[in-house]
């Protein structure tokens, strides 16, 4: 088999292997690129309401349970914290409920993981570490191979167009480097 044929076969098969990971990195890439505008892994829901003044002792569990009852909160109270003399923060199954005791103003915070996207970001940002680090490195090497082997697939008919497009792909990041660096 000629080297051109080997190049073609490897480019094709490694390309197939990379499809899943490329989509994962691409979708997650867009998601985390806009981290300033949104939370890519969690949907943080915030609801404000008023349950009326709370007069019980904030250090007393009965007060916390009364607050949950007034809110109609069915979840189990896990823990509590007093940020200041007038506030009580309750934790119920991953949710945070902060109550201003004199006014009864309640801020209910709930972080819901974004399905699929959270898992994609978890891998993309290499949160697992360990063996995933090496696998992601291997994927990067495979991508580099696809880029270089693609150059050797140019035919005479498409050579000019291929080289021009490749050149543009190199110039674009250089342009932004000159612009912003």
């Amino acid at each position: 088999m000629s080297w051109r044929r080997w190049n073609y076969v490897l480019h094709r098969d490694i390309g197939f292997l990379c499809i899943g990971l490329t989509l994962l990195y691409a979708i997650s890439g867009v998601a985390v690129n806009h981290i300033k505008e949104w939370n890519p892994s969690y949907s943080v829901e915030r609801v404000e309401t008023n349950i009326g003044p709370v007069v019980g002792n904030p250090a007393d569990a009965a007060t916390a349970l009364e607050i949950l009852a007034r809110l109609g909160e069915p979840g189990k109270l896990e823990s509590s914290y007093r940020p200041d003399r007038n506030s009580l923060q309750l934790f119920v199954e991953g949710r945070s409920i902060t109550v201003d005791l004199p006014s009864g103003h309640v801020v209910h915070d709930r972080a819901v993981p974004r399905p699929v996207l959270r898992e994609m970001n978890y891998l993309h940002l290499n949160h697992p570490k360990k063996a995933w680090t090496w696998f992601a490195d291997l994927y990067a090497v495979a991508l580099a191979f696809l880029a270089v082997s693609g150059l050797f697939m140019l035919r005479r008919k498409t050579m000019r167009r291929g080289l021009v497009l490749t050149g543009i792909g190199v110039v674009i990041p250089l342009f932004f480097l000159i612009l912003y660096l």
Partner: protein
Amino acid sequence: MHTFLITILLAAMLSPVTAFSKDFGNGVTLSEETAISAIIDTPADYVGKKVKVSGLIIDVCSTRGCWIYLAGDRDFEKIRIKVTDGEIVFPMEARGKVATVEGVVESMVLTREEVIKRRKHHAEEKGIDFDPASVASGETVLRIRGLGASIDGV
């Protein structure tokens, strides 16, 4: 049928795992624990030193998981644990759980402008209103540069 039974057995064996603690970063190695109140009372004794603290996680960075607030051992007190972005990522589900954290105590003297910038950023993250006029002056902030942590029940 065999597969079904094995699956049920495995699920039963693995389910209590969630009740154990999960390690982050370098985990926790120090044996002696320092009270958060002690660090707040006499910061000079601890700045630059590695400590182990524990407490209830009352807040987590919702965008990057790059910090948590631990409740102190006294009412109304808390301390921020900041970790390097990406090295340790605290999950939002850690809120309300108890953490043991190891790290180096840091003291930062901030100008009024820096305090405004930090609080504005924090308010944006939390989706709450912030009035720069509420900041009267600069301040000294104590925090722990987190190196490892162990969180119960995540």
